[in-house]
């Protein structure tokens, strides 16, 4: 209560105070004295970003559906708020009841991107908690991590007490069961709890394992420090999405957030097998929610929120097996209820255009397309199954229907890339412009424009490119300049690209080992936080942190680390075998494609653990 009063008085002094107030429609309040487990779901970025993340809403529901568990939300305070909190001695707090984070039983962080790691350190510090797991005793909450970056937990291994690998819908209640049992017997002992939860699928407790390094920094072996803990941690998989918990009454933010709309996850996983894509590997196999289930849940969600926009979520919307009927029904529903339907990540075939044209009848917003690489050769290498013909047919179609803003996504620095592939990017833009001129009978219209958006390749764990090197800063910068020069000459085409430095840090952290924990803490001590925010990112401080600890960061990006047989993330078993990844890597270098496993199984290995419902269904 005292904290609420302080906030009530101090909030006028910060930007967007609505970030810190809670009390939204559908947010949950329970009597925290009456529940057994007080859980804090922490998103290591600002409210607007965290509230746009569906995973938060799912976990919030899963936990709050359990009577004696109360899940509250915590976000990273923006820099001005942090300043105020430090000045006024306000600890990191939950939005729902303004409870200090260090009074909770468990604090769970979602690891969505590597560049949020310093925010986690900052939040632990704001909560008044020791940063390293071994420095926290029974009086502190358990710090748990999950999400995609937990698939290489090692850089954060010394900070977190345990990680949840894979889907959290079932594992979180299992963890709560064990906590409750121990609590009944009295005080929850740290070691007892951590040891007990290793029986749950997908739980990794780093302190029970110790990596042994060779002289050159690669890993010789990993010692197990407790007898009964698993040799490898198998990710947990929710097999039936239709019966899984889904937020039918999601929290409706009071202030504007990045994605302020109703969201339906139609499937998890992807069968396409793009070789750079971590999500495409770690979320296997594809599990679909049935169309009828999706429609019912959407109706419930719209009724409980009053949203006037609806979006579908998946890695590749068009691949949904009941895509056409689903979209037809949604369009009807949208008309009937005055709800705008938006369909991200569509494959641009004629049906998609029909639908998009209907949706964006009067106000055609941009059309985005992701060829990822500029030449057929390189697209074969990365297994992106789009042909030049696909690109130009789609663009011709778009132009004839009146789209005037085209955005194309590419990645540079991909394995085997040469300057010819960069020329290919320019060529594609030029050809689309020509299609437009032809269509417009040679007349130039300033309204038509193409944006080329270029990101920098970051090799990710558990992908066929996990062994690849990343371009150096100089290589990236040269490629940026090269593209800039070439694209400058094309009227109506603009280029934007990601800065080089954040991509380097992302790569170091993505394939990092346990020694990076100290570096992350050091970087934070030097002031690093909000690294994914251009205005806050400080490359020099990161470099100084590496230097202070005598660690060469390029070890993690040059491909040196992967010369070893044991990789830092080998402790995690995604179901996809190393043999498959190696085979895919070899095929990549030979420029050979691997087909979509909806056609027939490509033997990635995940079906050893779970049935692939979509396997061979398009064969």
């Amino acid at each position: 209560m005292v904290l609420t009063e302080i906030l009530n008085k101090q909030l006028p002094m910060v930007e967007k105070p609505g970030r810190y107030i809670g009390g939204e429609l559908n947010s949950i309040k329970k009597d925290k004295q009456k529940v057994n487990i007080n859980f804090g779901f922490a998103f290591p970025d600002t409210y607007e970003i965290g509230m746009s993340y569906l995973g938060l809403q799912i976990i919030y529901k899963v936990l709050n559906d359990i009577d004696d568990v109360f899940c509250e939300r915590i976000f990273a305070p923006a820099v001005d708020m942090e300043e105020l909190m430090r000045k006024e001695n306000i600890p990191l707090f939950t939005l729902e009841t303004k409870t200090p984070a260090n009074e909770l039983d468990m604090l769970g962080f979602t690891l969505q991107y590597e560049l949020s790691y310093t925010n986690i350190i900052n939040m632990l510090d704001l909560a008044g908690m020791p940063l390293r797991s071994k420095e926290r005793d029974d009086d502190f909450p358990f710090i748990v991590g999950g999400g995609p970056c937990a698939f290489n937990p090692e850089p954060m291994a010394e900070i977190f007490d345990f990680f949840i690998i894979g889907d959290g819908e079932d594992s979180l209640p299992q963890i709560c069961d064990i906590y409750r049992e121990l609590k009944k017997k009295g005080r929850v002992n740290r070691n007892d709890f951590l040891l007990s939860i290793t029986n749950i699928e997908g739980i990794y407790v780093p302190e029970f394992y110790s990596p042994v390094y060779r002289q050159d920094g690669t890993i010789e072996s990993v010692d197990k420090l407790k007898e009964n803990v698993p040799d490898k941690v198998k990710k947990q998989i929710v097999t039936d999405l239709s019966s899984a918990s889904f937020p039918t009454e999601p929290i409706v933010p009071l202030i504007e957030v990045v994605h302020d709309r109703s969201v339906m996850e139609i499937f998890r996983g992807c069968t396409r097998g793009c070789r750079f894509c971590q999500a495409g590997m770690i979320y296997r196999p594809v599990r679909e929610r049935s169309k009828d289930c999706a429609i019912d849940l959407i109706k419930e969600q719209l009724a409980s929120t009053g949203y006037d926009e609806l979006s579908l979520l998946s890695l590749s919307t068009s691949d949904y097996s009941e895509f056409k009927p689903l979209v037809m029904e949604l369009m009807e529903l949208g008309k009937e209820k005055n709800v705008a339907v938006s369909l991200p990540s569509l494959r641009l075939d004629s049906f998609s255009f029909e639908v998009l044209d209907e949706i964006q009848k009067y106000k055609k917003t941009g059309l985005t397309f992701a060829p990822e690489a500029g030449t057929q050769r390189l697209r074969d290498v990365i297994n992106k199954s789009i042909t030049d013909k696909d690109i130009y047919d789609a663009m011709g179609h778009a132009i004839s229907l009146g789209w005037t803003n085209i955005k194309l996504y590419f990645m540079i620095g991909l394995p085997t890339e040469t300057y010819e592939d960069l020329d290919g990017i320019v060529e594609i833009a030029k050809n689309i412009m020509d299609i437009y001129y032809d269509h417009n009978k040679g007349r130039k219209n300033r309204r038509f424009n193409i944006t080329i958006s270029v990101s920098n390749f970051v090799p990710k764990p558990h992908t066929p490119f996990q062994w690849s090197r990343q371009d150096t800063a100089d290589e990236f910068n040269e490629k940026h300049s090269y593209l800039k020069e070439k694209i400058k000459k094309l009227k109506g085409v603009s280029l934007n690209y990601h800065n080089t430095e954040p991509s380097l840090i992302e790569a170091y952290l993505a394939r990092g080992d346990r020694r990076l924990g100290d570096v992350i803490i050091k970087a934070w001590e030097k002031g690093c936080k909000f690294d994914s925010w251009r205005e806050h990112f400080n490359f020099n401080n990161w470099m100084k942190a590496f230097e202070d600890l005598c660690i060469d960061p390029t070890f993690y990006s040059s491909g040196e680390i992967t010369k070893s047989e044991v990789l830092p993330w080998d402790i995690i078993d995604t179901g996809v075998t190393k043999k498959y990844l190696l085979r895919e890597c070899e095929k990549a270098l030979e420029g050979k494609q691997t087909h979509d496993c909806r056609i027939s199984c490509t033997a990635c290995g995940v079906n050893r653990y779970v049935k692939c419902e979509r396997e061979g269904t398009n064969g």
Partner: protein
Amino acid sequence: MGKYLLKFKKLGLIRYTSHLDLVRLFHRAFKRQGISLTYSKGFNPHPKMSFGQPLSLGFESVGEYLEFETSESYEAKDIKDMLNIAMPDGIEITDCWKIDTNQKSISSSVEWASYEIQWDCEFDSSLIEEFLNQDKIIALKRQKKKSTMKEIDIKPLIYKFNKLDGNKGLYAMVRTGSSSNLNPQLLLEAFYQFLNREYSKDNCIIVRLDLYNSRLEPLSSQLLT
């Protein structure tokens, strides 16, 4: 078909949401409760819904107004009850009236607003009189779309300004509306300066009490007769 006027409160931490946030909130509340608003025609249809007078971010209120048109007819009481279910912490609908469809919009009839300023004030009441008795009361107002400040005389914009009983704070009734408007914060800044103190936004909580027409009648009073 129907036109309605709502009166509602905005209290507690939700005062840190903006006017636009509130517009969105009500729009969703209507949608959620299945109350069908009338939409404007054209390429970009938007619901016919308007507020008496936007409330500054950070202010509380016990007298906010919202006017809207529906495509179906409802009982005013039902609307009030339905909306209250869909409101987040801190917003409460206190009244709902069905009004004449031809009635002039409320936002155009708002001329005055009253505020309670919760502040531990330790000064003599005579100082307020002295403050109000100046020939001109000069305040610095930020100019629209510019970073420059302009001196304006706010004296004609103040109808009442006095101390509340028991040192609980101040009461102010000032001009508001589209033609001429005085934000009570500007009045406070001027008064603090008169007292040789510096005003900071966290000094006090400002609560809007009600909105009035040109005859100084509360907006709702016209409806009650």
